[in-house]
């Protein structure tokens, strides 16, 4: 079985998020594999372990996105595809989905796995757009994923609980952080990752023109939201509960 896991390189949570002068997310600090994508990687590796198959990571982004692929490959898997092109700077969700689906479509696949949304943009629509471009069914918000005899069986989170969804392959699934516990890369894994194939593709390699990925929106204005002032912070010396109860009383909610 051919498994493709979509991964994204995002600024580390240790960085203070900031915008560039042209309203793009600054990416010149530490870049890491999106923590949400680690769960996609883990699910991909588990599905491959259980039923046999190869795991390939696909990403789009500048050269620095390589860090995300290296991390994923250190966890396991067989190879990776990195689409990198100057025309993709500032690409929106639609352009991203177009490029990722082209990169996936040029190789065979049975199952595409992604996180439910990125940590930096939280748009959350790219996986479904990819599924639409690839013309395959999809199941989002999986908290449990099983593949048996070409049938995908998913526990899908809902507002009130969960549904069980069955779907034939090929298909796309997005996973929550309940779907697996990501493994830590071992030293051996990190060493092996350096030997694994890392294909770099340009837009031209995918047969996509720069005009096909032009942005369909632009930022008009960015303003600071009204700030909440911080109040009093105390260290609990056994009186924490009393102080909170007094606060609730003054707020007239008890």
């Amino acid at each position, binding site marked *: 079985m051919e498994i493709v896991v979509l991964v994204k390189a995002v600024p580390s949570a240790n960085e203070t*998020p900031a915008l560039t002068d042209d*309203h793009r997310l600054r990416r010149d600090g530490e870049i890491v594999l999106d923590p949400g994508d680690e769960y996609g990687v883990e699910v991909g590796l588990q599905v491959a372990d259980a039923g046999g198959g190869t795991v390939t990571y696909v990403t789009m982004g500048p050269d620095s996105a390589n860090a995300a692929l290296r991390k994923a490959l250190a966890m396991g898997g067989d190879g990776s595809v990195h689409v990198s092109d100057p025309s993709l700077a500032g690409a929106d*969700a*639609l352009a991203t*989905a177009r490029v990722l689906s082209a990169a996936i479509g040029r190789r065979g696949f049975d199952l595409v796995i992604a996180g*439910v*949304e990125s940590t930096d943009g*939280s*748009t*959350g*629509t790219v*996986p*479904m757009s*990819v599924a*639409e471009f690839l013309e395959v*069914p*999809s*199941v*989002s*918000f999986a908290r449990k994923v099983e593949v048996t005899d070409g049938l995908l069986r998913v526990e899908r*989170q*809902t*507002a*009130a*609980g969960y*549904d*069980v*969804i*069955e779907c034939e392959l090929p*298909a796309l699934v997005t996973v*929550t952080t*309940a779907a697996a516990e990501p493994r830590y890369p071992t030293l051996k894994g990190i060493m092996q990752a350096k030997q694994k194939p890392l294909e770099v593709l340009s837009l031209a390699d995918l047969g996509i023109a720069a005009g096909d990925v032009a942005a*369909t*929106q*632009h*930022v*008009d204005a*960015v*303003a*600071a*939201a009204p700030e*909440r002032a*911080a*109040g*009093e*912070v*105390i*260290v*609990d010396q056994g009186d*924490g*509960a*009393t*102080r*909170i*109860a007094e*606060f*609730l*009383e003054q707020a007239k*909610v*008890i």
Partner: protein
Amino acid sequence: MAAVWVYAEAGDGAALELLTKARSLSDDVAAVALGPGAAEAAGPLGEFGAKKVYVSEDAVFADHLEQPAAHVLRMLVEEHRPDLLLLSTSYHARDVAGRLQAALGATLVSNASDVPAPDRAVTQIFGGTRVVTVALEGPAPRIVLVRPKSFEAQPSGGTAEVVDVPLDVPTQLRKARRVERHEEQASGPKLEEARVVVSGGRGLQEAKNFDLLQQLAEAIGNAAVGASRAVVDAGWVPYAMQVGQTGKSVRPDVYVAVGISGASQHRVGMKDSKAIVAINKDADAPIFAMADLGVVGDALAILPKLVEEVARRRSA
């Protein structure tokens, strides 16, 4: 005049909020309601501003995931060419929007908090500390996913013309099948309506400690229990309890954050609370920067005492 459409999920009050906003943008407002219960939903949709409601009661929309809805919506949109399509952020609507965007080559904004014009959307980034206005370009309709509770629903007193949607959902769009449904019921007031929301995060250490929050909510009265995304994703509590960017937005009189660090994802959903109390072991947790009262300490030690203290004061 720009035509504005609202995608209404059956039984979802958020569509009424969107219709209220749509009315302020255009006189040409329609809604689309698909699946069992759609015909019944058409009444309220008309009362809140839809002039027309496109309806299908077909079970295909309940038995399968987003593909049939995205397909029918695409057919309707291509026929009637609305300028703007509003959806309320939910698991289902977000999937529909992602499919539709690819099928139409349309632009899309997610997590919007306002729609000031048919070609403008406002979102908040970096945990609600920056407000970004986005100009929407490219082919119509522009698609905007709006966070629930961004607008207050107000009836217009109108009635909608109900238009039955002729069905044509091909077999290849029926591959993802819903074979079981499991509902986990919560008790007490709704998160969005409670005067006090008591939310828990990773700092509670394990799922069973949510019982302490439940006890606190009961002791306070008219209080609901919420949760951070981390613990919902970890499966401790159902998604219905999630407060934040991808969960519910709440504006209670007092929000009590217990063992929640205050990631931007979470802050977006609770920053408009009248007052915020935070309990966290980590004095550097970002939640303290927005709390009216912050207590640095062990939640598991503080909570039982707090339950007792609240109960004592309420009975005094």
